[in-house]
């Protein structure tokens, strides 16, 4: 372009004012696009913070009065420890491991040891204020919020009996390593799951939700149920939280935050790091539109609520169904025909009660249904793309690139299950062995707030905690 303008200027000097104006407009347009891109991802971050506002309210509402603040502290600390640990090594993992543990360079040249050391190690010059880099901090921020989301997913499942120290260690393993490895393999365009199997997980149903959900399952096996959850004959009691309205508002706030989460899954055009000069793309570089994504988020959300209403009539499960509906659709939010998104969300929500009862019969006390909503429906989200969206090219490029397939999605689902379950089980087993997993029996019976929290949730009193764990 510049050479053409110079040539034009040489042949027609009288056009200089016009050419100068074109150049100025081009520069202004580029600056405007850069500012837009930066602000776009920056705004994802406060929206995603709403996810944590929601999880905080949700978990505290689902806790009994004697444990309200302890649940809140745990949730707040998960977020807080995620920020520095993701800075220390989470971002590095995302860039280092797409091709596997060997840290080799990927086909797009945007991954591997050299790239990670240059752009994602915590003493790199781009990991702080840098006038030559407008975007790294904003991307790290958005990914940190993804990481904190995974920790919060696990957090709800384990309320009322986990030690906060052990929980923080688990949250760091999940949020700054396990899911990031899933993202490196199945989200990064150089990821081996993407390159070899055409794995498609646009909205992270597998690599965020399934990984976090099954990580929680691994922890719950070693943590054990709350006292009073199961009777001697193996039958289960319902342990009600102290504030259902707070839980419902929390769930709806998580939904609001999900818009920021899904915005962060999109690549803005026109920048040096963009896939395209003009069009919006998925993280894989495939074309998509915010319009299409909006249709499908809304339809999945509605399908989830209505499906859950059909099978439970319970407001807790209806709002969990809203979340579950979006998770069910998440992998293919860029592709679905909206009525199909509704159906996928609806079916996912209808699975929830059966999935929850299945885990409960195995003796798993998942206080908020996180394994079901995020784990089971996360896998359903991945596999549903293999069933209904097979044949799409999984990457940009000429005809012949790897395609989305049922087998590829199935392989991805198995990998995401293992990436969550194995570290969750192994690390919690070690923590149990060294006495850092479960609170003492006396503290659990008395309540964690009066045992260790120097504040009171309801100093003027509120109804006593319900049986059976009193």
């Amino acid at each position, binding site marked *: 372009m510049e050479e053409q303008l110079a040539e034009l200027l040489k042949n027609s000097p009288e056009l200089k004012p016009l050419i100068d104006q074109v150049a100025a407009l081009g520069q202004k347009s580029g600056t405007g696009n850069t500012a837009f891109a930066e602000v776009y991802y920056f705004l994802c971050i406060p929206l995603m913070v709403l996810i944590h506002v929601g999880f905080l309210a949700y978990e505290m509402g689902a806790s009994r009065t004697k444990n309200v603040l302890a649940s809140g502290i745990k949730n707040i600390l998960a977020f807080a420890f995620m920020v520095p640990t993701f800075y220390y090594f989470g971002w590095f993992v995302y860039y280092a491991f797409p091709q596997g543990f060997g840290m080799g360079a990927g086909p797009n040249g945007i991954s591997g040891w050299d790239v990670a050391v240059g752009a994602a190690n915590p003493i790199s010059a781009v990991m*702080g204020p840098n006038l030559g880099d407008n975007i790294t901090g904003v991307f790290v921020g958005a990914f940190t919020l993804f990481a904190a989301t995974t920790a919060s997913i696990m957090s709800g499942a384990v309320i009322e009996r986990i*030690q906060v120290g052990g929980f*923080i260690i688990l949250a760091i393993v999940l949020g700054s390593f396990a899911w990031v490895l899933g993202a490196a393999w199945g989200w990064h365009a150089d990821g081996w799951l993407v390159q070899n199997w055409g794995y498609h997980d646009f909205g992270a149903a597998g690599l965020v939700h399934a990984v976090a959900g099954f990580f929680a399952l691994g922890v719950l096996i070693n943590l054990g149920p709350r006292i009073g959850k199961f009777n001697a004959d193996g039958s289960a009691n319902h342990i009600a939280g102290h504030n259902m309205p707070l839980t419902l508002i929390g769930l709806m706030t998580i939904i609001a935050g999900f818009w920021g989460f899904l915005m962060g899954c999109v690549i803005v055009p026109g920048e040096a790091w963009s896939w395209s000069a003009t069009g919006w793309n998925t993280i894989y570089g495939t074309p998509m539109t915010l319009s299409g994504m909006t249709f499908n988020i809304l339809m999945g959300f509605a399908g989830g609520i209505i499906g859950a209403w059909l099978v439970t009539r319970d407001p807790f499960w209806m709002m969990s169904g809203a979340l579950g509906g979006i998770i069910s659709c998440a992998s293919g939010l860029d592709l679905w025909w909206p009525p199909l998104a509704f159906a996928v969300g609806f079916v996912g929500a209808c699975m929830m009660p059966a999935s929850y009862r299945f885990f409960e019969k195995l003796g798993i006390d998942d206080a908020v249904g996180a394994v079901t909503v995020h784990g089971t429906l996360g896998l359903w989200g991945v596999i549903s793309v293999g069933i209904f969206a097979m044949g799409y090219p999984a990457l940009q490029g000429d005809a012949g690139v790897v395609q989305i397939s049922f087998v590829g999605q199935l392989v991805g689902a198995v990998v995401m299950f293992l990436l969550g379950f194995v570290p969750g089980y192994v690390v919690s087993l070690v923590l149990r062995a060294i006495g850092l997993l479960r609170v003492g029996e006396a503290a659990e019976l008395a309540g964690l707030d009066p045992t260790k929290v120097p504040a009171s949730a309801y100093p003027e009193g509120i109804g006593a905690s319900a049986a059976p764990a009193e």
Partner: protein
Amino acid sequence: MGSPLAEATWNGAEGAMYTGAGSGMEAVWLGVSIVMCVVALIVGIKHENDAYKRKQAE
């Protein structure tokens, strides 16, 4: 640490401009912040275990 600018002016400033950029102290402060996290975690675990023991003894 302090300003990494060659002169006391923003004119012509470019690249990294955080405190101590290029001074080699980045890794030191990285280490300090990691130690702070680890110490807070260890002290938190101790506080928690002491609280459980007190409750058990009641």
